[in-house]
Each structure stands twice: as structure tokens, then as C-alpha cells.
């Protein structure tokens, strides 16, 4: 770094522009405090990303040092690769449905907890809502792979608890029904598992956002005669709109990954590739087939789709009148 390091880059500007002598203390400080973390970051994060762009233009197999520049051949090939295109479609489906359902569920539960209480007097949440909050958050502390494994067992045809329950209540057509082994249900069931894993976390976030709204806003709405449903849809939702947008982006990125869940539920990509996702295909192409150049091209496509998705969410939010006039939140 350049030696003209000045401390106090924070709020106080007056003291900033004073040059300090270069002492051992100061130099060693900058080297260790900035150099060390940066070295780790550049070697293990930045350099792989940059290399990926280059590898995606080669036919590298990874095991030989031989590597030919092939331009955009890998990308052309990708767009004729039916299996990969199927994976892209699956990912897009996931990125549409998983965030929507998760957010609707999380918002509903958060609303019930925060303003579902008494319809008169102060707007308040349900009694004992702490219990629901704690329980709903459980899935967040369970590793995703384990969530997948538990549900895979629940959905297993003969020994799974779901089929047993369904036939117990008289739905015998579900005896030995392979939820994850049938192309019609594999994807919806996988989505359900992901949503199960996500809802609690976003519910807690939305609860926090709703609690952050000035209570007087709610009081005013109540005095104006707004019921709880109207309060939730016309007041709460617009006020926490930015939180919902951010949640949508996080969830969409998680859905575009989905690797862990899919790997736990259907490692092979599901019946007729019905649950195959881009990351799974990338992983197999790289580490099982050894087509490293081709697989990094998949990574680039995945990154592009991810960014496109985020851009789309921002645009839609802006076009539909995002950034609603924010009511100042009193602290």
C-alpha cells in the first residue's frame, strides 16, 4: 500500500489530513492488518474467479497440462446440451417458486406473530409468540444436507413416514408411492423441502422489520378503522418492501444454487433429470468427467443467470413503485 496512510478515515474529517511518521509500528500494522487478509482473499477468492473466466474459453481437461484456446465453443456447446438446458430450466423454476412461497409463508407467519393479537386497544402480537419464533427457526440451525436427508427418509416409499400416514388415513393409493422417484412429484417435493428450510429464518427477519415500524403508524391505522388484514396488506407490506426485496434476492440466489438439497434428495438429478440443477451438472462435469473447461463455462452461465435474476428483481421492484415513502422509524 502507499505509505500516506492516514488514520481516522471515519466520521471526523478535521483530524484526517495529518501525515504520520512511518514507524515500525505503523508499517507492520498495515502489512499485517491489511496485507494478510487481502492475500488470503486474493489467492483463494479473487484469483479462482478470474481464472474461471479464462478456463471457460479452453478445452482443458484438468489432468493434462495441455490446454487449447477454443473461444466460445464451450458456450455454443452448452446451448445445445439438452441436459444442461434442462438444469437451467429447473433452476429458473426454483428461482421463481421457492422465493415466492417462502416469502408469502414467512410474511403470513410473521404478521400473525406481530399483529395477529387482540383486535382492539394497542396493536400487538399473539400471546406466546416467542415459542413459535423459536421453533420456526429450528431448520436454520440444521445443516442443509441433514434437512435433505431427513426429508428424503420421510418421503421414502416403504419405510417413509408420509406414505404410512397417508395410508393410515385411508389414502391407500399412496402406499409405496415414491415421491422423489416420480418425475411429476420430485420437483414440487424438493421445493417443499427447501422452503421448509428457509421459512423460519425469513420469518424472524420479517418479524424484526415489522417490529421496527413505528407503533404509532399502526395505532393511526386502527383509529381509521383498518382491520388486521387491511393493516397487513396496505400498511405493513409497503413499509417493509425493501426487506422483502432483499429477501427475494437472497432466496433466489439460494434457489439457483440448491446443490446441497438436491444432492441429499436425489443425487443423480432425479427421475428424467426432473430435479437436476446447474451446480450438480457442473460438479459432475468437472470432477467426474474431468471436463474442466466446459464445466467452468457452466459456472459462468450460472453467475450470469444469478446476476440477471438480481437485476430483474431490482427492476421489477423499481417499476412497481418501490422505495415507497418511508415513514421515519422512531428509535
Amino acid at each position, binding site marked *: 500500500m*502507499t505509505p500516506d496512510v492516514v488514520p481516522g478515515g471515519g466520521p471526523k474529517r478535521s483530524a484526517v489530513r495529518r501525515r504520520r511518521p512511518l514507524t515500525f509500528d505503523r508499517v507492520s500494522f498495515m502489512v499485517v*492488518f491489511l496485507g494478510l487478509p487481502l492475500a488470503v482473499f486474493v489467492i483463494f477468492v479473487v484469483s479462482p474467479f478470474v481464472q474461471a473466466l479464462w478456463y471457460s474459453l479452453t478445452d482443458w481437461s484438468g489432468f493434462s497440462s495441455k490446454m487449447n484456446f477454443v473461444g466460445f465453443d464451450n458456450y455454443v456447446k452448452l446451448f445445445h446440451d439438452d441436459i444442461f438446458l434442462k438444469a437451467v430450466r429447473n433452476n429458473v423454476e426454483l428461482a421463481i417458486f421457492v422465493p415466492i412461497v417462502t416469502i408469502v409463508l414467512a410474511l403470513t407467519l410473521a404478521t400473525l406473530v406481530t399483529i395477529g393479537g387482540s383486535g382492539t386497544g394497542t396493536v400487538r402480537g399473539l400471546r406466546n409468540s416467542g415459542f413459535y419464533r423459536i421453533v420456526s427457526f429450528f431448520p436454520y440451525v440444521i445443516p442443509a444436507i441433514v434437512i435433505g436427508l431427513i426429508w428424503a427418509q420421510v418421503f421414502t416409499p416403504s419405510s417413509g413416514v408420509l406414505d404410512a400416514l397417508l395410508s393410515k388415513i385411508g389414502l391407500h393409493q399412496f402406499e409405496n408411492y415414491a415421491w422423489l422417484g416420480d418425475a411429476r412429484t420430485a420437483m414440487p417435493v424438493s421445493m417443499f423441502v427447501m422452503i421448509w428450510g428457509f421459512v423460519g429464518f425469513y420469518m424472524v427477519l420479517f418479524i424484526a422489520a415489522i417490529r421496527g415500524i413505528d407503533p404509532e403508524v399502526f395505532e393511526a391505522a386502527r383509529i381509521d378503522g383498518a382491520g388486521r388484514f387491511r393493516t397487513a396488506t396496505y400498511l405493513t407490506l409497503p413499509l417493509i418492501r425493501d426487506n422483502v426485496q432483499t429477501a427475494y434476492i437472497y432466496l433466489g440466489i439460494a434457489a439457483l444454487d440448491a446443490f446441497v438439497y438436491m444432492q441429499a434428495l436425489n443425487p443423480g438429478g432425479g427421475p428424467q433429470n426432473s430435479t437436476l440443477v446447474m451446480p450438480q451438472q457442473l460438479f459432475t462435469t468437472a470432477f467426474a468427467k474431468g471436463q474442466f473447461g466446459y464445466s467452468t463455462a457452466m459456472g459462468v452461465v450460472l453467475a450470469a443467470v444469478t446476476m440477471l435474476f438480481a437485476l430483474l428483481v431490482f427492476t421489477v421492484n423499481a417499476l412497481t413503485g418501490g422505495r415507497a415513502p418511508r415513514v421515519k422509524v422512531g428509535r
Partner: protein
Amino acid sequence: MTTTIDRVELATPSPSPGKGSREGKGVATTAHIALILWSLLVILPLVWTVLSSFKSTQEVLGNPLALPGKLRFGNYATAWTTAGIGRYFTNTVIVVTSALVLVMILGAMCAYVLARFTFRGNRLIYYSMLAGLTFPVFLAIVPLFFVLKNLSLLNTLPGLIITYVAFALPFTVFFLHSFFKALPGEIYEAAQIDGAGEWRTFFSVMLPMARPGMASVAIFNFLGLWNQFLLPVALNTNSDNYVLSQGMASFASQAGYAVDFGALFAAVVITVAPVLVVYIIFQRQLQVSVTAGGVK
């Protein structure tokens, strides 16, 4: 913001309280039912897992709804030793603890410098770290494999640790940046006047002041690292070095049809229970962290 007049208005009772409260009860009951149903959907699979962990394979395959005939603690012993969960558990604790300590130190140092010192390139570094947050790890995974291979760190625990640190670093810096930024500049000057060097100022003055932020990030990082799946599966393929998540995956898949189901469920319980217990003890702090660090 609030005037006295507002307050007076607020004191007015809402219209027709009698009708409202009856209707209010109905809504509250419906809300409770909805939340209880959701809670059951969360808890029941876990309860079923725990019950199944005491069953023999025959019992698991026979009647999934039945209670275990007797409590077979042997399943836990099998999972711990034969299936290697004990070893994976130890590996995970080593990797996660080291990575966590390292990333907290490096992250705090980096965030501190970026937040409180002006120098050329400051913003560039900060924004490239932000970008590192948004790029999918999958894009990097293949080149990363060879970076580690060239450094002879592939399939080693130190290699895994340093990778964990690198990928948890952007989030840590991003989160702590605002904490250090918010500290008043006078404190730094006071420390300087008292004769503290840069190192000392950081470790004895600034770092302790950022403690609440550190705690929140540490919780997030811990859960994130404990959860890590892709990095170990791609970069740590020696089964002696497996961490829990990949050990679980391979246990579930490799045994194929000859799975010892009781032991599989026991392994799941071993993986989940410690974190769940810690969560229940510290749930208040954790939920506060989510609130503080989460979606803004």
C-alpha cells in the same frame, strides 16, 4: 415527531370495542391454529428422526409409525465408530473452530483498516470484497481445486480451513465495517495521545468496543461454516478428513441398499443435537443477531 395532540388522540378507544374483541378472539384463535400447524410441521419430522434412531433396521423398514421396541443406544455407538461420525465430528470441530477464530481476527483487522483509515485503493478493496459476496462459489470451485493442489493443500484440513476463511471473509468484513465506522474518532486520538501504538489501539481499545458486532458475525459464521457442503465435497476428498456434512452424505449414499437405518438416523441426531441445544440456550442472542445483521 410525536406531539401531545397525537398522544391525546391515541388515548381514544377504537370504535365498538365489544364487537371487536369477540372478533379479535376468533382471529387470534385462527392465528394460533395456523402457527401450531406450522410448528408441528417443523417438529414432527425431527421427533420421528429421534424415534427412528432407536430402531433396528427391520423396525425402520417395517412400520415407520411404530415406536421403537426398545431404546437401542447401540445405533449411536455404531454411527459414532463404524460409520465414522465420531471422526467426522472431530474434524468438523477442528476445522470450524480454527476457521472461525482466524476469520474473526483477519476480518476484524481488515474491516478496521478499511473503515478507519484513508488511503489509495481503500474503496476498490472494499467493493471487490462486496463483489466476492455476490458471486456464486460454483464459478470458483474448479480453479480453486487447482489453486489448492498447487499449494499442496488439497485434501488437507489446513487447506479446508484457509478456504473457509477466505470465503467467509467478505461477509465478516462487510458486517464489521459499519461497526468500526461508527466508533467515535476521539477514542482513537485519546489512545494515541496516551501513547498506544496502532496495534495496541486496535487490540485493547477498538476490538473490545466492537464486541457486539463480533458476537453476531461469529454466530453467523459458525452456522455457515458448520453447514458448509460444497467446499469440503470438492476440496477434501480423503475420507479420513471428511467433515460431518459430507460424511453424512456419503454415509447415506454409499451404503446403498445395505444401509443401517437406525445408525443413519442416529448419525443425523448426533449432527443436529449439539447445535440445536446451543441454539435453544442462546436463541435470544441469535435472533437479535439476525435482526441486527439481516436484511436491511
